[in-house]
């Protein structure tokens, strides 16, 4: 078997590959530049590795360590002293800067009750403890956290009056700490809302969502809940997806890049296939859906969070062309079964005795066999031929049993028509189909057709037509030979019809028939067989040519 150069070079041994690698430049300068840049990038990353950094630290640390330790100690001591002084000093103003007091509790001297009202619904609770002069206490403001408020909810606390001074001091310390926290809180909150404003879902919320959306798993939310990723971990954007599509050569590459940006997709839905949703807009109203099985990527937008609803709009971003498998029998569902022309002829022989049960063996399955309505069977060895059988009433007798040829638009009832007529029709149709399907073997002028007909008569031989064959046509003397008939000097071909001359080789004599016909065989004229075998040699062709009143269909 001959081998191809590409195949040989591709499957060469290491030695040859090395020779090629050694002798020929593999790619252009741009590619080389790209590889070089990538390499430098990688080298730079490795240059920042901790190895070098650690070495420097070790080198310098013996010198600086004692000084740093001393400095740290001094700083801690100073801080502690300053803190103590500050704690002892009288507070110039009570802490009232932060108006986050949403519930109050009052401490009363002697045996008063401290109640945290609405504690379970507030962020923070400030306790305003007021004391009278005669008990020697002073006014302080304290803030407690929500948790504390919750605990104190519905609990009666009795505070003796003579212990309030100490309590106030402790309360003061608490106030300072809390004040810092309280003032810091709004700043943090505002920062957070400025960046993501994202609130992760609870397990109950996830489960509720999943129960509402059939066959969907919230992969990203579950990963956040399990601590695998942070709530603000990046999502892939539509622009990124489009960029990946533009710069990648296949689906796998695109999908790999998407997964690199967002390893945990938002939702995996679908049944039978994976419909992976990336919520590029942060919600289910704007998503990119990836289906790895069908290798396509869609952008879906909707206004109500229902990507399968009426408001959903689909835009295909990427679809990989796949090899389409031609089904074994695309029309099987339309047909109950299939048979051959020989089967049809066998059935036709039964004539009136043909029953619906005779078709059972040709059905695809037991379910395909119907005792009511009609059944269509494909005739497999012909193009566009089929058989229709329909039962008559309650008996097994057939009401209809027709063979139809969709190519030639013929039909014949095989029950009521004589077997020989059925056979003749089927042969005629088959011949027409064969002629229509045959390739043109050559061209011949109408003058030559007339001449050969006149010279040879019924002894016309395929060899007489050999000068008109295309050089590429190879005949084994059993093929149909179809010639395109063209204008001669004397006879011009009809402009309305494409005219062919077809020779059908036969046994016993050189040709069974030779007919002039148009493209769809609706017009035919036999130039070989006599009209009346017992009379003078006159063919259909002679007849139409002799007619003065009517112009033959094939002549201009």
């Amino acid at each position, binding site marked *: 078997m001959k*081998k*191809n*150069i590409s195949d040989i070079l591709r499957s*060469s*041994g290491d030695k040859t590959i090395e020779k090629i*690698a050694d002798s020929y430049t*593999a790619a252009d300068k741009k590619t080389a530049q790209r590889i070089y840049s990538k390499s430098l990038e990688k080298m730079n990353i490795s240059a920042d590795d901790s190895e070098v950094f650690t070495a420097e630290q070790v080198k310098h640390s013996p010198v600086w360590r004692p000084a740093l330790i001393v400095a740290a100690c001094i700083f801690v001591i100073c801080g502690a002293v300053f803190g103590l002084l500050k704690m002892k000093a009288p507070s110039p103003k009570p802490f009232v800067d932060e108006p986050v007091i949403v519930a109050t509790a009052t401490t009363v001297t002697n045996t008063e009750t401290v109640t945290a009202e609405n504690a379970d619904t507030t962020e923070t609770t400030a306790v305003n403890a007021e004391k009278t002069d005669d008990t020697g206490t002073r006014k302080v403001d304290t803030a407690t956290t929500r948790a504390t408020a919750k605990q104190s909810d519905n609990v009666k606390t009795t505070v003796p009056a003579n212990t309030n001074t100490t309590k106030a001091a402790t309360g003061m310390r608490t106030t300072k700490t809390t004040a810092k926290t309280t003032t810091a809180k709004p700043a943090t909150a505002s920062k957070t809302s400025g960046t993501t404003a994202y609130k992760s879902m609870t397990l109950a919320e996830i489960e509720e969502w999943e129960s509402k959306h059939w066959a969907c798993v919230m992969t990203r939310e579950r990963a956040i809940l399990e601590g695998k990723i942070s709530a603000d971990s990046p999502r892939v954007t539509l622009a990124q997806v489009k960029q990946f599509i533009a710069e990648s050569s296949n689906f796998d590459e695109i999908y790999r890049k998407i997964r690199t940006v967002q390893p945990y997709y938002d939702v995996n839905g679908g049944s039978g296939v994976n419909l992976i949703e990336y919520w590029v807009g942060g919600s289910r109203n704007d998503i990119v859906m990836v289906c790895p099985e069908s290798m396509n990527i869609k952008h879906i937008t909707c206004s109500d969070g229902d990507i399968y609803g009426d408001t959903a709009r689909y835009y295909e971003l990427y679809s990989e062309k796949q090899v389409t498998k031609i089904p074994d029998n695309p029309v099987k569902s339309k047909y109950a079964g299939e048979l051959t022309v020989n089967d049809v002829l066998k059935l036709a022989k039964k004539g009136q005795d043909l029953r619906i049960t005779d078709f059972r063996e040709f059905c695809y399955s037991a379910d395909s066999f119907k005792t009511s309505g009609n059944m269509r069977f494909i005739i497999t060895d012909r193009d566009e031929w089929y058989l229709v059988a329909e039962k008559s009433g309650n008996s097994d007798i057939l009401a209809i049993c027709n063979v139809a040829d969709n190519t030639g638009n013929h039909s014949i009832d095989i029950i009521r028509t004589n077997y020989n007529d059925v056979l003749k029709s089927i042969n005629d149709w088959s011949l027409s189909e064969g002629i229509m399907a045959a390739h043109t073997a050559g061209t011949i002028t109408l003058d030559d057709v007339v001449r050969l007909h006149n010279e040879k008569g019924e002894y016309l031989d395929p060899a007489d037509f050999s000068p008109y064959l295309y050089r590429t046509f190879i005949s084994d003397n059993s093929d149909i030979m179809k010639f395109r008939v063209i204008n001669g000097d004397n006879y011009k071909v009809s402009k309305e019809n494409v005219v062919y001359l077809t020779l059908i080789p036969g046994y016993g004599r050189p040709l069974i028939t030779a007919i002039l016909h148009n493209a769809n065989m609706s017009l035919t004229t036999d130039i070989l067989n006599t009209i009346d075998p017992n009379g003078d040699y006159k063919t259909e062709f002679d007849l139409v040519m002799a007619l003065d009143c009517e112009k033959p269909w094939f002549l201009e």
Partner: protein
Amino acid sequence: MNDNEIKAKLQHSAEEGFKALFNEYWSYCYTIVFNVLRGCGSQSDIEDCTSDVLCDTAMNYNSMHEGSLKAYIGTSAKRRAIDVKRSISSHTSKNIPLEDDISSSLPSADNVEADTENAELSEILLARISSLGEPDASIIIHKFFYEHNSSETAKILGMNPITVRSRLRRALKKLKTLLADLDIEM
């Protein structure tokens, strides 16, 4: 630049050394990687793998080693490319046929004869292609090995695409005569 000079540069300065190494061996490394990853990896995969091999060589190659730098790059390119091929295949859930996977390391006893014959044939073919002279040999290699079209080949060889096409036609005619005794079709 020879291996010793490159090694010396690598010892002296990583960047200078790498530049010298890259200029000398990028095409060699690229070809070996390309041959393994063709039909499996993308252009980007091939480039990444090539840069990995070259970086790795620049950073990890022991400059004091006496061996050939070319052989080191060749072997590490082939191994790295096979790793990448495996990785891509596992990512894309396309399995590499077992025989394909191990073919690089374990020659099958059944195919030794065929492999040897093929290797010999490819060597003869390459020799005859080389005998065409430049740039015809390069044009043929780019067409049949790298599967580049005329414009790509022209870009690489610094020629006009039309010239590449006409030279290719003439080179193929010549090659046909040269390969007349071999059972090879164009």
